């Protein structure tokens, strides 16, 4: 019976899976871009924000038995705080910041955070209940989990919030100004250090959201940061570093291509797909699919 009309329903099934994975890569990619725009640096601890988001959410919902919305909020605040502390204690004190130095610091922080996650939450993977039940909905012979809808919906909310924040609030415009021209922004009275801190806060918050919404599906453990981070990084690069819509589009592309590869070829090759797309794009269009050559120039810290 499963085979009836299987061509289309299979495709649909893979597409749902792809959108779900893609949403996560999109969020992780956006996180990279926020910090990249304010500092010119790739934050290698981005994947750890995702892990902390997922694991903290597990603790708050499964152990502390908090409601999902409350746990969601507290988890995002908690990880945002980690982002702020990371900036204040490891990035801000650097005397002569340059991109390489800062990147190495973020690698160190990622190792530290990973170790801390292992200490606090152990090596096992953690189960978390779905937001609103795990009974699948049937759509043209394919099954769709309510959690998948949550994931896509939350991505949409984040993207809309992002647009409103950066285009319609003074603080968002100040952050953009600081990313475009740091000296001119300082002359306007904008404290560039605070903007950098804010970018770490936002980036950590978005990472936490990604971790929270994916954990019911993948069961989070402390090692997940590296691969999630890598694919989100790929999405950010393929979308054009610094271009957040590019990251969303590329993240979706990654997710869908992975799911199709897993479905039609073999799930063994799934993780290679993202790297393959990354390599191809870097060969053909090094500034990314949606990046201009302008945007590809590195920003000085």
């Amino acid at each position: 019976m499963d085979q009836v009309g299987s061509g289309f329903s299979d495709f649909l099934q893979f597409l749902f899976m792809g959108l779900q994975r893609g949403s996560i890569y999109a969020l992780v990619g956006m996180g990279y871009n926020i910090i990249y725009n304010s500092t010119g640096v790739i934050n290698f601890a981005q994947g750890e924000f995702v892990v902390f988001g997922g694991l903290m959410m597990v603790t708050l919902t499964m152990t502390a038995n908090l409601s999902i919305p409350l746990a969601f909020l507290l988890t995002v605040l908690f990880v945002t705080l980690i982002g702020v502390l990371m900036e204040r204690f490891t990035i801000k004190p650097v005397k002569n910041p340059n991109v390489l130095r800062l990147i190495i610091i973020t690698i160190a922080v990622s190792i530290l955070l990973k170790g801390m996650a292992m200490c606090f939450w152990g090596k096992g993977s953690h189960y978390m209940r779905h937001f609103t039940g795990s009974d699948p909905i049937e759509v043209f012979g394919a099954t769709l989990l309510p959690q998948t809808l949550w994931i896509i919906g939350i991505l949409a909310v984040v993207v809309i919030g992002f647009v409103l924040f950066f285009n319609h609030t003074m603080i968002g415009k100040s952050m953009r100004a600081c990313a475009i021209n740091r000296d001119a922004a300082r002359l306007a009275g904008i404290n560039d250090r605070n903007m950098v801190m804010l970018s770490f806060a936002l980036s950590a918050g978005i990472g936490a959201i990604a971790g929270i919404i994916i954990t019911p599906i993948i069961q989070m453990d402390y090692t997940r940061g590296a691969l999630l981070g890598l694919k989100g990084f790929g999405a950010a690069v393929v979308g054009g570093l610094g271009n957040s819509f590019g990251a969303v589009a590329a993240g979706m592309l990654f997710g869908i291509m992975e799911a199709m590869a897993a479905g039609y070829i073999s799930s063994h090759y799934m993780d290679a797909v993202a790297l393959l797309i990354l390599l191809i794009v870097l060969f053909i269009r090094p500034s990314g699919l949606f990046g201009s050559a302008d945007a590809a120039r590195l920003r000085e810290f």
Partner: protein
Amino acid sequence: MLKLVNVNSRYGLIHVLKNVSMHVSAGEIVTLIGANGAGKSTALRAISGLQPVHEGKIFFSDKEITNAPAEKLVRQGIAQVPEGRQIFWPMTVMDNLEVGGVVTYSLHGKKGLYDAIEGMFQLFPILKERQNQYAGTLSGGEQQMLAIAMALINRPRFLLLDEPSMGLAPLIVKEIFSVIARLREEEGLTVLLVEQNANAALKVADRGYVMETGKIVFEDTASNLMRNQEVRRAYLGKDKREIWE
């Protein structure tokens, strides 16, 4: 109002400002002229807090401000229009003015900010017409006016202008300088004007300093500097003699 005492500044090992001392009194327009690479922009950046001062002191309104960060000095009434029209080109004219007025916004709220923007539109009416256009699509003159409006929007007491005439048509240069002169008359704005276009600068200025390779070599009233043989030869292109002669 502003005083520099033996200011030295370096980029790494390159010693750019060498014992620079100068002063600007309240209500004056003072110009700093000199060849390309002399260190004029560095001097302005040292005053506005973008460039570190390694030795020496800077005073503003009798308070020491040496190495105070730029974002703090704006709040004390020092505004700089940097060299080369440093506007936020991917943002609209309106967004640029809003960002330029962050300080006004934090002091006087939304209404204060939009009143200030309206004031800038009266000073430079063309900006009002262009308010929804991306700053990068403006003409050179309009970009310079926007850059100046972004500095004036917080009603500074002291304005640092770095080569506002660079690459602009004489008519536009005239308009910009007349706005500056008017602000001095009407609001007592004090101005330190850096120019390579020494002719135009000395015409609007009261006094001037001449800088060569990081040192102040002349200081006089604008009219005396215009008559000074060496200054005429080196910076005003008079007597048909070249700098290297």
